[in-house]
């Protein structure tokens, strides 16, 4: 009974909702978005979702969900071992930090944070290709920019989903 009292069920419920959204988003990213490339690149909106969690829940939650999302991405992606785990965790934590000291939680602030998160994640993916395979930096940067640009509109729902889930925290 004491243990039951110590467990914050409301927090767990919120965390489970984030996990469920994350899993759905990863499935959409892997099955649907991996087949659509209007700008010649595929979208990867998950970093924006992590930024949204960081924005509404703070750096600790952003970092934790960054680890979780990165872990899933690393396991499903070929050629990466811990790249996403580390970069997403840092992204989530930074989003929380930036929200605490620099920006508010409004939509436009989120879009700026999401754009930066998407660009940073894309650059993190490009760096190993540049280092190990000597790919042309300009081509890599172009791809990273296009990836972030195509992912940005798909990042819009993340803001509203996270706001609804985080809204439970405020009500509670």
């Amino acid at each position, binding site marked *: 009974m004491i243990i039951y009292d110590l467990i914050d069920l409301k927090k767990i419920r919120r965390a489970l909702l984030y996990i469920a959204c994350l899993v759905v988003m990863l499935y959409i990213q892997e*099955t649907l978005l991996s087949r659509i490339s209007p700008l010649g690149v595929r979208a990867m909106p998950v970093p924006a979702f992590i930024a949204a969690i960081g924005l509404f829940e703070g750096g600790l939650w952003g970092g934790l969900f960054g680890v979780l999302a990165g872990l899933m991405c690393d*396991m499903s992606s*070929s050629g990466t071992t811990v790249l996403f785990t580390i970069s997403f965790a840092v992204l989530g934590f930074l989003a929380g930090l930036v929200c605490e000291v620099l920006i508010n939680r409004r939509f436009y602030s989120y879009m700026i944070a999401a754009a930066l998160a998407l660009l940073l994640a894309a650059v993190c993916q490009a760096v190993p290709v540049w280092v190990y*395979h000597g790919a*042309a930096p300009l081509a890599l940067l172009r791809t990273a920019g296009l990836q972030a640009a195509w992912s940005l509109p798909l990042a819009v729902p993340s803001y509203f989903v996270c706001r609804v889930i985080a809204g439970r925290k405020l009500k509670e």
Partner: protein
Amino acid sequence: MKVKRYLLRYGVKVAAVLFVAVLGVLIGTGIRSGLAGPLTDGAGSLKIPVQKAATALIDWMESIYGYVYQYDRLVEENNSLRAQIAELQERARDYDEIAAENERLRQLQNLREKHEDFTYESAKIVSWDSSNYASAFNISKGSDQGIELGDSVVTEYGALVGQVTELGTSWATVRTLIDVNTNVGALIGEMGSSGMVVGEFTLMQQGQTRVTYLSSGSQIFQGDEVLTSGAGGSFPPGLIIGEVSAIMSEAGGQTTYGVIDPACDLSTLSQVFVIKDYKIVE
């Protein structure tokens, strides 16, 4: 000051979680030995049925789209394919005569027949890698079906698609021949000059790859066919890689390389064949 306080409050906790997570990933993925660790294998096995269903749904929607919007193109393609079938049927008739003549000459010269015995496993592509910096896909078969790491993957026409680079019990990841990490020993053109097919990022984005490290004195020409050489034993010899579409020079201008259009169309690929075993009798 605010940043410092924030970092002191949360930074250590996140760093600790990150450290544990990295360790977990390294153990879970088998430290990239190619064989999936229990964590990755479990996640992959869970994902495959859902991805299969999603892929089937997308294929169905694409087929409806194709029926509605691409009807004229399909009629035209159908007519062109009919013409090709007629031509191939004529060639097949010639082939029977040539094969019979070849057999007679072999018997006359007491030569052994040269043939390739491949054991195939067909598999559906369930998902493509969502990264823009790699070209790979997952198939719905794994070690339970006898697939091994390093097995070659081809189309129904025998064109090389790639190689199995990660393996789970019921799934496998195939790295395509245009990926930046791909290296394949190759023979080019009628002269059979040797070279190496090596992936390149910019070409990968255009669905192409390149053949380089050409043997000294060898020449390549536009339109040359590129086949696997079998050197190193990673791929069986004689698989079609593609055709040289352009001859280019490296930045220094001292070495040349050929841009290859792969024989397999990766953008429309939905089913592949894994060569589980092969025996070549010379």
